[in-house]
């Protein structure tokens, strides 16, 4: 017996593919995701850079600003909103994990 596909999943897919939703999604990725990326970049570099602790913290901040800007560009340059999120969230998660793993320097 053929089960007709429910209209709801198809409608949902239609909504998701609406350009406005894509733009909103990318904007969130750029702004929230971008900030998360900057935050984790600064904390990871503060712990990971092989220099004096205070100098590493400062360097991390200076680089993190650029990282945040790059995230915004990435979010709108890639082919889909999903790629935008992955490209930003993945490095952010990795660096967040790295921060936790490295822990506060002795």
């Amino acid at each position, binding site marked *: 017996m053929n089960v007709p596909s429910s209209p709801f999943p198809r409608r949902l897919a239609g909504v998701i593919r609406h*350009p406005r939703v*894509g733009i909103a999604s990318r904007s969130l990725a750029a702004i929230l995701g*971008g900030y998360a990326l*900057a*935050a*984790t970049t*600064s*904390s*990871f*570099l*503060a*712990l990971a850079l092989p*220099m*004096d*602790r*205070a*100098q*590493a*913290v*400062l*360097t*991390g*901040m*200076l680089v*993190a*600003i*650029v990282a*945040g*800007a790059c995230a*915004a*560009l990435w979010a*709108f*340059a890639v*082919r889909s909103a999903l790629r935008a999120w992955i490209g930003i969230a993945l490095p952010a998660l990795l660096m967040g994990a790295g*921060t936790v793993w490295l822990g*506060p*320097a002795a």
Partner: protein
Amino acid sequence: MKQSFRQSMAWLHTWTGLLVGWLLLLIFMAGTASYYREEISRWMRPEVPATTTRGPLAAERALQYLQRHAARAESWTVTLPDDRTGTLRMFWRNPESATPVDDGKRRGRRGGRFGDATVNPDTGEAIAARETRGGDFFYRLHFDLHYIPVVWARYLVGFCAMFMLVAIITGVITHKKIFKDFFTFRPGKGQRSWLDFHNVSAVMALPYHAMITYTGIVTLMFMYLPWGVKAAYPADEDAFFSAAFAQFGEPREAAGTPARGTDIARLLDASSRHWRGGEPGGFTVHHPGDAHAVVDVFQRTGKRLSIDTPSLRFDGVTGALLDAGPAPGGATRTRGVMYGLHLARFADPLLRLLFFLSGLAGCLMVASGVILWAIKERPGHLKAGRIGFGLRLVDALNIGTVAGLPIAFATYFLGNRLLPLAIAERASAEANVFFAAWAVALLAAFAWPKRAMWAWQLYAAALLFLLLPVVNALTTSTHLGVSLAQRDWVMAGFDLAMFALGAGLACAGRRMQRWQPPASAAARRRQSANVVDTGPAGAGA
């Protein structure tokens, strides 16, 4: 999105620019004015004469003042006068308080009772002048905005700065013919001219725009990105600041026994010799009058780019050098230069003029950007027969901000001259006048967002600026006649600059008033055909 990289960057450029453009205009205009913060402050306190005392004598007068008014303070900090600020600035920390905060460079617990004073180094007395915030109003407006809690304002400004940074990068990516169109500006061609102008004002000052935006974020980065500090210094964040800024640690405890302080002139001279000619910019006395007094002398910014200057720590009683200060690390020096580039304290008068010019280019870049958007949108709306909500909103904001903010600036200065001297909270009143004027301009623009309103507001701004030197002459004795004769270039320069701004705005108003829509190609062809037809034959008829 199913469009090319350049197209998506163009889209991003439009929206990052448009959404924060008007707030950015406020930030940019206030920031550009801040290059002349000290000069504006001087003009706004015309009662204060130009001073001549500098160096050790000024320092001694400062200490005499502090002995009289803050003898029991835990510390005194004095900034010595230089050619831009002819006054002694001092603040002190009263005994029963928590650690001090200075400028966000060193985070401390808030609270603590401070006193401060501005003293004339010629007389040793506190400056008696009309209560005003002078140029500091624009400096604070630039990052603290107004009427909202400072923390919210700084987050908002930082958000706008990030949008601006993205707008700059996407603008460069999207500008296909950045080299070919480097010198291209074709006036009188409508939308094409506005795009050319936007491009030229952006590209010709591109190093400046990129620098000022990035360094602006850097100045407040401890607030925006505290995570590195929290990760690396989880127990004691203050330790980070001491380490990062190569500061002296806490001075030794007070002895409790009084002792005579050493001669400050000796310490200033010793500092200058140690720095091989670098001049002292000020000093801090810890535990004044105590046997364990300590004096930190810090160097004036002078020509060095960095905001951080070396300092020396002396024994306050014997005058012996205790500590020559740790050497700053590479990242510290980098951040110092970034911060220094943003404030441009190192700029001499001519270099300062170049910075100011670049700031103006930035204002014009943002203004032409938001205007360009409206111009591009309009044909679609005209075709549909009515102006939609979005375009009407943008038109109103454009007029009320691009023309309205200059009105507010001029009104602020007029308020300084015209508000009664004795009213309570006069400094706040002056600030309120600024925003009241801006509000009126915005309301008028919302009521009638048409070309005529552009002309009206530009003319109004021009009139207010041109009136300023006149009002100055009528209300004070520091007008152009006097200032030019005395070669007081700060007072004279300000009045002349107001004339120049007024003239420029009047020209802009005139262009707006006389603008004719560029004839369509068909109309132009018809026009030239008529001329040919009624040529020699027509003339004779």
